[in-house]
């Protein structure tokens, strides 16, 4: 076994344990904490898999923003999860087991390429063209087409520029929706008279909320 494989196995085992913990715990605050650990672990796995940019995103989004958003949601809801009905849980269990079994079965297919195989469609189809257009090839002093040193950035910002634009619009919309939903609570609290005894403070807070 190579170095990466051993580290991957250990990290994936811990990932599975964390997932079981998230599924078993009923305290939603603890679940939030464990989901932070989950994203730390998956980001480490991305680093071992050499996907440094994905790991960066996972670090910022998974461990940072998602934790804050989940905590903001906890303010609006209960801190304890209630168990669903027995039939609901059984149905969910069947779906999960069937899906997991199907995914596991798919990996057993002999037509599936091996992990890191250079002859997969992903490696032979467009990737060589992207590399040729981006990285200066050997001795030829031909100018590269795109002029961005990082290949991943080239793909994201140039070849799939419109795709990235669409993704950004989606994330922007989702962000606005989340802010509106979480902002509801503060606005409602300001409107209820019992919570804010002095009208003066109320006005201050309203002024603060404007900027």
């Amino acid at each position, binding site marked *: 076994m190579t170095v990466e494989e051993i580290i991957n196995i250990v990290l994936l085992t811990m990932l599975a344990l964390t997932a079981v913990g998230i599924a078993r*715990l*009923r*305290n939603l*605050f*603890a679940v939030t904490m464990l989901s932070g650990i989950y994203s730390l672990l998956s980001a480490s796995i991305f680093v071992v898999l050499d996907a440094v940019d994905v790991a960066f995103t996972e670090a910022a989004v998974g461990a940072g923003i998602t934790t804050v958003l989940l905590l903001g949601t906890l303010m609006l809801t209960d801190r*304890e999860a209630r168990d669903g009905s027995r039939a609901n849980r059984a149905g969910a269990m069947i779906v999960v087991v069937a899906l997991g079994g199907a995914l596991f079965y798919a990996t057993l297919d002999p037509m599936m390429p091996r992990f890191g195989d250079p002859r997969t469609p992903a490696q032979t189809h467009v990737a060589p063209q992207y590399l040729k257009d981006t990285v200066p090839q050997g001795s030829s002093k031909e100018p590269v087409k795109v002029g961005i040193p990082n290949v991943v950035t080239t793909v994201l910002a140039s070849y799939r520029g419109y795709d990235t634009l669409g993704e950004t619009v989606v994330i922007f919309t989702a962000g606005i929706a989340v802010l509106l939903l979480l902002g509801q609570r503060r606005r409602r609290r300001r409107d209820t008279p019992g919570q804010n005894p002095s009208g003066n403070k109320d006005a201050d807070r309203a002024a603060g909320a404007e900027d």
Partner: protein
Amino acid sequence: MEIVNHILFYASWALLAAGGLLCVIGAFGLVRFPETYTRMHAAGVIDTGGALLILAGLMLQSGLTLETVKLALIMFFLLFTSPTAGYALARGTWSAGHRPITHTRSDARTDGHSDSAGMTDDG
């Protein structure tokens, strides 16, 4: 020069091994100690001893390069953030009503967790 390289190699090896050992010791304390304050003490072993020794060992490995600067920055941040986070955590624990265990070990077995009963969940 040869001998200096040898010395650096063994020094970095020793630092890395000691750092790894301190990480395990700290994490072991994190699991074994009876309540939050003592566990915080164990976590401090990871944050200071473990982190600093491992980062120093890696610094000796990379020599005078950009990597050493990055490692020094990580060390610098950790030296500032871990005590601050530890203080904030201890303060939060205290103001939530938890009090440290102040009696001996034989007593702690019988009523060590009584003061944290209000905050426990179904773990």
